[in-house]
């Protein structure tokens, strides 16, 4: 546990030591801020339902860049040799890095909290859907980070890691589009697998266990495979 926290802390520091972190934060704030003001001006509704959809898409675009460095860079520079020959378990390395990416995600989403604050000043929004929406966004982003960490463990090239992450997320996002091709249970399975279909309800203020379990299992699968991939390094 101490090792996990030591690695998470170190990794969080190195996030904020790099200019990339601030570029991503700025890009996220500019993009979300633009959509927020545009949607508000058009709809004139004190709700965040539509902006949550946009934030999801922006996360899809930015999260591969957030996670690409986590393990790929250690493998490229060889620092992984010092890390893995220390008395740490592979799972501790993975969890430490993963928590660091979650911390960054939460900071990033936290910076958008001025949206609900603005809405309460100018209108009377329902807090339920907003809280549920943020919970959904964190779960949604957490599953992205897990996929990204897995991809970063597979290569020593950050760009390759980012591309693999993006493609995987895109497939997970749109997999239900093909569900119409099949009937019955195949269609149901594909819809269930789609990462976006579980996200929609949160914005309406519904936290469904089914959706929460979906995201948590995606996180667990990603972290499990990343740990195995790190272990496999020892047997190559």
């Amino acid at each position, binding site marked *: 546990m*101490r*090792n996990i926290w030591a690695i998470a802390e170190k990794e969080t520091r190195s996030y904020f030591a790099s200019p990339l972190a601030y570029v991503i934060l700025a890009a996220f704030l500019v993009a979300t801020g633009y959509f927020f003001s545009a949607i508000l001006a058009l709809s004139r509704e004190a709700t965040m339902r539509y902006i949550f959809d946009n934030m999801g898409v922006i996360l899809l675009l930015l999260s591969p860049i957030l996670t690409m460095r986590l393990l790929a860079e250690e493998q490229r520079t060889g*620092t992984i040799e010092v890390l893995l020959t220390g*008395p740490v378990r592979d799972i501790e390395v993975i969890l430490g890095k993963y928590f660091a990416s979650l911390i960054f995600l939460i900071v990033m989403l936290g910076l958008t909290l001025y949206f609900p604050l603005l809405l309460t000043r100018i209108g009377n929004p329902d807090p339920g859907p907003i809280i549920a929406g943020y919970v959904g966004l964190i779960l949604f982003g957490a599953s992205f980070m897990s996929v990204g960490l897995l991809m970063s463990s597979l290569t020593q090239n950050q760009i390759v890691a980012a591309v693999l992450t993006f493609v995987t997320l895109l497939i997970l996002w749109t997999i239900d589009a093909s569900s119409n091709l099949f009937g019955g249970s195949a269609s149901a399975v594909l819809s269930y697998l789609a990462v976006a279909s579980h996200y929609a309800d949160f914005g309406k203020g519904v936290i469904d266990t089914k959706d929460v379990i979906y995201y948590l299992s995606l996180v667990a699968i990603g972290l499990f495979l990343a740990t195995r991939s790190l272990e496999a390094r020892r047997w190559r």
Partner: protein
Amino acid sequence: MIEVDGLIKYYGARKAIYGISFQVREGEILGFLGPNGAGKTTTMRILTGFLPANDGVARVAGFDVMRQSLQVRKNIGYLPETVPLYTDMTVKSYLDFTARIRGLSAKRKNQRISYVMDVCHIADVADKFIGKLSKGYRQRVGLAQALINDPPVLILDEPTVGLDPKQIIETRQLIKQLGREHTIVLSTHILPEVSMTCSRVVIINEGKVVAVDTPDNLTRRLKGVERIELEVRGPREAVLRCLNNVPGVTHVEHQEREGLQHCFVESEVNRDIRESVAAAIVNNGWGLLQLRSVGMSLEEIFLKLTTSEEMVSQ
């Protein structure tokens, strides 16, 4: 403290090491000497649990490196060859991190950090980013990192590479000093380095152990003599007398096996006595069953080692 038995490692189809075996006793400084690409780094990576061996057994502090990897890693401080460090951290925060993942308590952590910064002479760069440090400083930060939890075993892969002559001398002194409390395995491709720091040397070449000895004995064997192995059918006394009379011969070891005279003949350096030995035996009418140079591979390694040594001009 360290037992290595029959380690084999393939990279794809290529043999990196083939049947490496040696022992390191507690408190010993073992030099791992060999030309580049001999398998030094591979062996060290197996000892630290970073790479698995295809076959063979290695134990460090009584723990199997494959099955009890975590226990082994608790007992080892490791300085990899390329000294990979996090360039975006300061020296102090990096040492703090390595101390934490090695499970040091807060109080002991601070003690050890100031101790290792002191012995490795890096206290003056404590707050600098590692990325901004010179090679010599990085090397010493790497060494400090390996020492941080006071592990009983230190594995140092080419600890003096890339340092200037003054730093090399300092680092060797430091290693000797550490050798009083730690068991150390250090690799190098520089011959004088082992004679200055190590109590015993393992020479490896092309993935095999070629010799294990003390540095003094090895230097004598390497520099002093050339040996040939000989099998002769003839009367014992006469053969010995004849061999001793061949010009250039300094020493003859002899064994009689099944009626054959089995000899090792040593000669002066750079003097090939094989022809004159053969001529002497044939002229006496004895049967020459075998004649071959031994230790030629050692000599070749020695050549490779002395070539790289000149670059350091020590």
